[in-house]
């Protein structure tokens, strides 16, 4: 999208007869209002994260990561993402292969179901697992008898995160693979390649950038999920608090430097995610010859 808008903006400013006084005034009014609005709701909060985190100096910023509970929260977040992202990536690739490469009945319905987690409130996403595995839940007493902890423990956090980040990879790959078509894969099969070989050598290189972006976005959401994880985690400090939950605890204790220091890590992750997205779009526009 960026590639197209860039060329059209250049085209517009190059158009003759467009530089009247009125058009210049309108132009700067639009740019001014846009910048003012984005500065208030987008740029100011981002800047606030870093200025508050560094508010008591660089030393205090780095000291906040030495805290044992903060370290535990970072480790738990990395561990959760390490389970969730690969699972949702495998699901995304499978769903995209089945949906984009084949025509079958109920396809549109299946895609709507895959989108469901986007439409559901994160709190409801956590709630459903509490109703299944919580102490009064469907499997609650069975789990208690067998001494298995799901809610207020790691499995619950993993399940809630899986639910929330479920559609990301599939959503990124399905339109991309549909657009690329089946011709090259069919040619490879006709020439005797195996199915796996066709996927690895023909499909994968074509969808590489979309896959990377889907995985990175899924990862950013997995590490940053707050609502759903908050419902299932139980907020046991140093044990079941992920980074976003730890931010909440520190913030409510008025430990602002610590809270915003952890927040700054997640903000950097978001910035990296957007850089990868821009790289992907740049690659896509280069590939299509724009």
């Amino acid at each position, binding site marked *: 999208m960026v590639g*197209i808008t860039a060329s059209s*903006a250049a085209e517009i400013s190059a158009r003759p007869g467009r530089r009247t006084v009125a058009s210049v005034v309108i132009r700067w009014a639009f740019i001014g209002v846009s910048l003012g609005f984005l500065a208030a709701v987008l740029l100011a909060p981002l800047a606030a994260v870093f200025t508050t985190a560094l508010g008591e100096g660089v030393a205090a910023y780095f000291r906040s990561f030495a805290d044992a509970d903060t370290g535990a929260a970072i480790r738990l977040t990395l561990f959760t993402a390490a389970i969730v992202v690969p699972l949702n990536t495998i699901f995304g690739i499978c769903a995209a292969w089945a949906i984009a490469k*084949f025509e079958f009945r109920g396809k549109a319905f299946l895609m709507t179901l895959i989108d469901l987690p986007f439409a559901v409130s994160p709190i409801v996403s956590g709630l459903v697992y509490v109703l299944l595995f919580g102490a009064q839940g469907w499997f609650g007493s069975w789990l208690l008898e067998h001494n298995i902890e799901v809610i207020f423990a790691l499995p619950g956090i993993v399940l809630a995160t899986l639910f929330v980040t479920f559609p990301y990879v599939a959503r990124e790959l399905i339109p991309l693979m549909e657009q690329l078509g089946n011709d090259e894969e069919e040619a490879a099969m006709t020439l005797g390649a195996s199915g796996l070989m066709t996927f690895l050598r023909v499909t994968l290189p074509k969808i590489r950038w979309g896959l990377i972006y889907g995985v990175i976005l899924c990862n950013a959401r997995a590490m940053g999920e707050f609502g759903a994880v908050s419902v299932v985690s139980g907020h046991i400090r140093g044990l079941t608090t992920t980074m976003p939950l730890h931010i909440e605890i520190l913030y409510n204790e008025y430990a602002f430097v610590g809270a915003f220091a952890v927040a700054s890590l997640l903000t950097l992750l978001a910035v990296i995610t957007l850089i990868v997205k821009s790289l992907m779009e740049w690659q896509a526009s280069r590939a299509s010859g724009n």
Partner: protein
Amino acid sequence: MNGFRQPSVLPGFGLTLGFATFFLSAIVLLPLAALVLKTASMSWGDFLEVVSSPRALASYRLSFGASLVAALINTVFGFIVAWTLVRYDFPGRKILDAMIDMPFALPTAVSGIALTAVFAQNGWIGQYLEPYGIKVAYTWLGVTVALTLIGLPFVVRSVQPSLLEVQRDLEDAAETLGATPLYIFRRIIFPTVLPALASGFTLAFARGIGEYGSVIFIAGNLPMKTEITPLLIVIKLEEFDYNGAAALGFVMLAMSFVMLLSINLVQAWARRGMVAARR
């Protein structure tokens, strides 16, 4: 496969569809079914008592009202931002364009505490609103600001492609024939982008209703006043009132389905609009 699917030389259909359906059922459908079944096990009286209690009604009003206002703000400013990004070239335009997606990538808890810091009484923006008696943080205005940030990318990203579809020849022709910029906007630009605006509005509205993380820090969370519906569910769970939580969760789930349906309808309409514009 008797008409279930069209034949293809490509392999792996059964395997990939099988795994995808299994994983979808285990992670998404089965847990959602548990919520529906839990609610179904309640009696009508109990259900109605929970979902129509004054506190629940107040939370719907806030969740819906703030989402609606935020989506309207985003429709106006999102259009202006999209127009600026598509039509004008200025230094930093590409970076600004990339940053529109920030609310998608930024964890909601981070946006929550950051917005509170900016809009609190001593914050960068809050201190200038304070003398006029405008309090943003810990009021419904704060909820609206948080939902505005969350919904912004939906509107901008919907409108951008549709602005590219506006036929510039028509604009030029209208201008040559003496049409004012306002007339051109009303008769040529607005009808072309209207479906995309509607689609962006619906997406932003739907997202706002369920939003939790970015709201609770700035909302103040006073019962009956600044308590959103998702927070009420969390409170019920903390009181181990599973039935109450399930009933409210069911209401929100039903709302999600209604919103999902409206989004599909609006987008189908938007696609027809795009096709018509191309002709």
